[in-house]
């Protein structure tokens, strides 16, 4: 059995409650519980977190960077989605 058989996991840490989990890196492990053990040793040696997620990398669907301009371009010309697009007359408050 070769080491290659240990899949890659992406590791996410919640640094303290109230914040969302954030990607910190990846590691190889035989299974998810080993991934969590290793993540504890590898990414939280200085109290970096209160909760860990391990997600097998192959289960993450990712958008293609080569397509990113086509993908995100439709949002670019819709400036009316931002509050700054609108003029608020002097004297109007709480808007």
């Amino acid at each position, binding site marked *: *059995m*070769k*080491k*290659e*058989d*240990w899949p*890659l996991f992406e590791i996410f840490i919640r640094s303290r409650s109230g914040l969302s989990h954030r990607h910190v*890196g*990846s*590691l*190889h492990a*035989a*299974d998810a519980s*080993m991934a969590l053990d290793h993540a504890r*040793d*590898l990414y939280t*040696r*200085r109290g970096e977190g209160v909760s860990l997620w391990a997600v097998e990398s192959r289960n993450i669907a*990712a958008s*293609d*960077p*080569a397509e990113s301009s086509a993908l995100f371009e439709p949002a670019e010309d819709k400036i009316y989605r931002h509050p700054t697009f609108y003029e608020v007359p002097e004297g109007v408050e709480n808007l």
Partner: protein
Amino acid sequence: MYTQGLDQKPDTEKQVDGTEQLVRFQARIDADEKIEPKDWMPDGYRKTLIRQISQHAHSEIVGMLPEGNWITRAPTLRRKAILLAKVQDEAGHGLYLYSATETLGVSRDQLTEQLLTGKAKYSSIFNYPTLSWADIGAIGWLVDGAAIMNQIPLCRCSYGPYARAMVRVCKEESFHQRQGFEIMLELSRGSDAQRRMAQDALNRWWWPSLMMFGPSDVDSKHSAQSMAWKIKRFSNDELRQKFVDVTVPQAEFLGLTMPDTDLDWNESRGHYDFGEIDWQEFYEVLKGNGPCNRERLAARQSAHDDGAWVRTAAVAYAQKQKRRCQAA
């Protein structure tokens, strides 16, 4: 730790001059944009990074050996706990960096194989022996110190995963340097025998530490491309000079003497002048003829072999758990 400008040729690939992709890539670099794993990149950029980051990873891993040698013999429980934590950090650095290398399309197995077969290089400094406890002080102070000097600019490297790994690494390094300096300080304030031990360690580690920055700029004609790609930000000699300038006053504070009769403050340059490095020794160690090259690789090889059953058992266990889960 531990990068070293080993100065192998960056693969200046046969670039189809002026291709639109290349121009766009360089424009992104020039605009200080980060390059991410799935982004288009020139072959030479990818290969240069794979070589540099994996060398760096291997150095962290092999770098555990000289210090690991003293864990069982650290003089107090406090020192033992500190050294254990430091060596564990170095293992972590190796793993962050292997992961960063893998984002470029090379597998962990390939990387391990390259190290064990001697195909890949690691920092020359780890081929020197740790003869006394003072060596652990000298390594933390000088070797980690030189590493920090090298690594801080890498936090701004154009390749995202490398830069992010380096930010983590740099945060962890400063304790390494301080614990080393503390060991040296304690020895230098101790008995005559302890002071001699500290001086002896400095004598043996000073020059190899200067070599960690790689060949002098005159002989290092390949860094131009790495600079243009913003993989590298300062030349080997610039970083080496910086290191000398900050370290000499620290040695003076310790009351120790640098083993270099040419070392002298140069008022007009605003820097220390220092003696010529023995480049022959540097290249010999790189070629595999340093005092401990064979020992280091043999230790890695046996760790790998002795751990084989653990890796196999872990996979077997994971598969069994999975089957049970599915059956239930």
